[in-house]
């Protein structure tokens, strides 16, 4: 089947979802009122509360929610074939992410723009705030671990991309100096930055960076060496002022996201590639089956709990009219779904023949360990359709993923530092409070230990449990979404509306998450992977806790209604 048809089918389904289901949500479930005075109007201060036109707000919201995760998950999940992956992206976006993101904006706007952590404490129970904190702790640990490995995999497989990926750092720092110190305008510097970045791609090809010598000296594998170097970089980056590196990198990332989306879809259309992956891949008995693993492998791109932080953090304080929440929340979710679609296309139509695809996705270990490599190969192929050499195109894709992953790790380690400090305060470990270097070291060492956990069935003997880590990350992300959906469901019920639209995805996610966690638990026990076992057990406890809290809150609300 031509890959273009998949674009038409997916975008067509998104259109129908927006046209009909989001309308149903707007009218029947969230009961949007165009006359409701939103916090942006009621509290308008021009600082946090600013009535903002919906097109501006969609731009803010979409660029904030989109990242590397909707690329990685689908790139792994096509292991089960393109049909389950795209079906979950479509159904998840239309009936999950759309409900979640849209609902988080409305619920927050109806509660004076309070964020989802505060709302969970208020709407569900006081304990839910602690639950939220713990879920975020696990999520960040796993985020940092998986993105550390993602970058290491890419650097090992594409040494030609190291120079352009690293050159982003001085470019961003120069932009930071220019914008924040010299107060200059950013258009020309960011264009120059982007040109320099792309000019560094052929330079990187000419001078690939290998760390084999260092790895040999340290007695480590190449990938382990890269993982350690990346975490060392993250330790330093997370100690720098945000204006120096993290903030200016946003200017580059924003442009990269748009360029990547445009070239992938243009490449598919121009090349008229066909999908060579099977619709449903018959996997061997005893290996991970798509049911339930698909639903936690693709989190971002189908439904992501972290979106509720953006939706209830900034977006809800700026919607000018409550009815705009549909366009921004549901529309933003569809944008993320489009990113997942791009990843599916790259990994199902960009890898060559059906035999090439079968080699790349021989088993789950190979599929997860090689997912990003397959994505960049696919993007390289699409760019070759546009007349750009495939290896340069692949380097371009590596740079896109690495800049997003690097930003995520920088943020994740900083956040983990704050959360560790908060947990230390709550637990009475005064020795940790205020010790930034020590806290940063802990925030780096915990995910680093996870990233280096051996394992990874059939991962070409590379010895990393990346696939397992990714599925654990997916479960925690779905738990965050579960918490937000619980808040939304209770709030909808309190308004005497039918909460099924939120309860169905909530129940589905919690069942799939629990199921996958139990299967993983048994696997880890059998393999003797104690570190992963502890993580899995911890997340399972949080899941059980969330189920109890959500059921109690819904029951309480139903009785009072």
């Amino acid at each position, binding site marked *: 089947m031509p890959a273009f048809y998949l674009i038409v089918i997916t975008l067509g389904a998104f259109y129908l979802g927006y046209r009909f289901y989001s309308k149903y949500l707007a009218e029947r479930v969230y009961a949007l009122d*165009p006359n409701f005075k939103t916090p942006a109007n009621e509290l308008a201060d021009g*600082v946090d509360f600013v009535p903002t036109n919906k097109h501006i707000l969609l731009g803010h919201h979409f*660029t904030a*929610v989109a990242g590397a995760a909707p690329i990685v998950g689908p790139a792994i999940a096509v292991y089960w074939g393109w049909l389950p992956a795209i079906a979950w992206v479509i159904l998840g976006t239309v009936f999950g992410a759309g409900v979640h993101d849209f609902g988080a904006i409305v619920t927050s706007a109806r509660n004076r723009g309070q964020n989802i952590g*505060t709302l969970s404490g208020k709407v569900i129970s006081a304990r839910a705030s602690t639950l939220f904190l713990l879920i975020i702790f696990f999520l960040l640990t796993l985020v940092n671990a998986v993105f550390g490995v993602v970058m290491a995999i890419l650097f090992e497989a594409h040494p030609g991309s190291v120079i352009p990926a690293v050159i982003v750092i001085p470019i961003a720092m120069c932009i930071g100096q220019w914008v924040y110190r010299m107060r200059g305008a950013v258009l020309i510097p960011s264009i120059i930055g982007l040109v320099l970045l792309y000019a560094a791609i052929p330079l990187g090809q000419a001078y690939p960076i290998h760390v084999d010598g260092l790895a040999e000296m340290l007695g480590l594998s190449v990938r382990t060496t890269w993982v350690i170097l990346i975490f060392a970089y993250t330790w330093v980056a997370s100690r720098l002022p945000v204006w120096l590196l993290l903030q200016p990198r946003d200017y580059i990332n924003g442009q990269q996201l748009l360029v990547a989306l445009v070239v992938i879809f243009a490449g598919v259309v121009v090349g008229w590639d066909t999908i060579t992956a099977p619709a449903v891949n018959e996997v061997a008995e005893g290996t991970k089956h798509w049911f339930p693993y698909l639903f936690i492998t693709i989190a971002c791109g189908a439904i992501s709990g972290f979106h509720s932080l953006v939706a209830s953090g900034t977006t809800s304080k700026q919607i000018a009219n409550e009815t705009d929440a549909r366009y921004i929340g549901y529309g933003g979710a569809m944008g993320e779904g489009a990113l997942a679609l791009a990843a599916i296309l790259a990994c199902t139509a960009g890898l060559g023949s059906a035999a090439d695809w079968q080699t790349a996705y021989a088993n789950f270990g190979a599929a997860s360990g090689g997912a990003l490599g397959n994505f960049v190969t696919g993007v390289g192929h699409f760019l070759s359709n546009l007349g750009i050499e495939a290896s340069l195109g692949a380097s371009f894709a590596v740079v896109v993923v690495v800049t997003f992953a690097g930003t995520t790790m920088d943020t994740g380690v900083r956040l983990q530092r704050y959360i560790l400090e908060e947990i230390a305060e709550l637990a009475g470990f005064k020795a940790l409070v205020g010790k930034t270097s020590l806290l940063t070291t802990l925030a780096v060492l915990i995910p680093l230990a996870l990233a280096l956990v051996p394992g990874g069935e059939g991962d070409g003997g590379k010895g990393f449990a990346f696939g397992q880590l990714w599925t654990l990350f997916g479960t925690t992300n779905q738990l965050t979404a579960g918490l937000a959906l619980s808040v939304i469901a209770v709030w909808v019920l309190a308004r005497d509306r039918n909460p099924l639209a939120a309860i169905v995805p909530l129940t589905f996610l919690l069942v799939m998450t629990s199921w996958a966690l139990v299967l993983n638990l048994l696997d880890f026990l059998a393999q003797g992977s104690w570190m992963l076992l502890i993580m899995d057990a911890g997340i399972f406890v949080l899941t059980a806790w969330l189920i109890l809290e959500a059921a109690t809150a819904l029951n309480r609300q139903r009785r009072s209604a």
Partner: protein
Amino acid sequence: MAKASWRDYLPQDGRAAHRLILVREQDAQHSGSGCCGRLGEAHTDLGGAADYRHSRRLMEDVGVIYREARAAFPQLVVEVVDPRNTVWLYPAVWQDARAANRSARACFASLRKAGAAVAVILDGEVLFSGRLPGTQRVIETIRARLAAP
């Protein structure tokens, strides 16, 4: 009914419409923060607000201008936008500048200066970029521009 575009926010009584765009960064991480992080931002549970103090100060400075401008010029459409929202900002500045019959050269000059940590743009003309003078001077400059034929 939802408004269809920014033009629907403009006065509908036939007066010449003017639009003021206030550019300033939100005190939060922007790209990739939904997958997976959300650093900065006052009123958040996660932390990082102190890291973004410099952006917060600019937000508050622009907030004063926003309130003063809305009070002084009720006919003015005032939009606040983050400079990282390039997809909206640059086309809007270009559109406003062309609508005000500015030359192509002036339009490009506006584009060049529009995206900054902070900027004040009236009808596609960048009045201040990078640094802001006192609020009163900004308001007086806007008043003078609006009064000009």
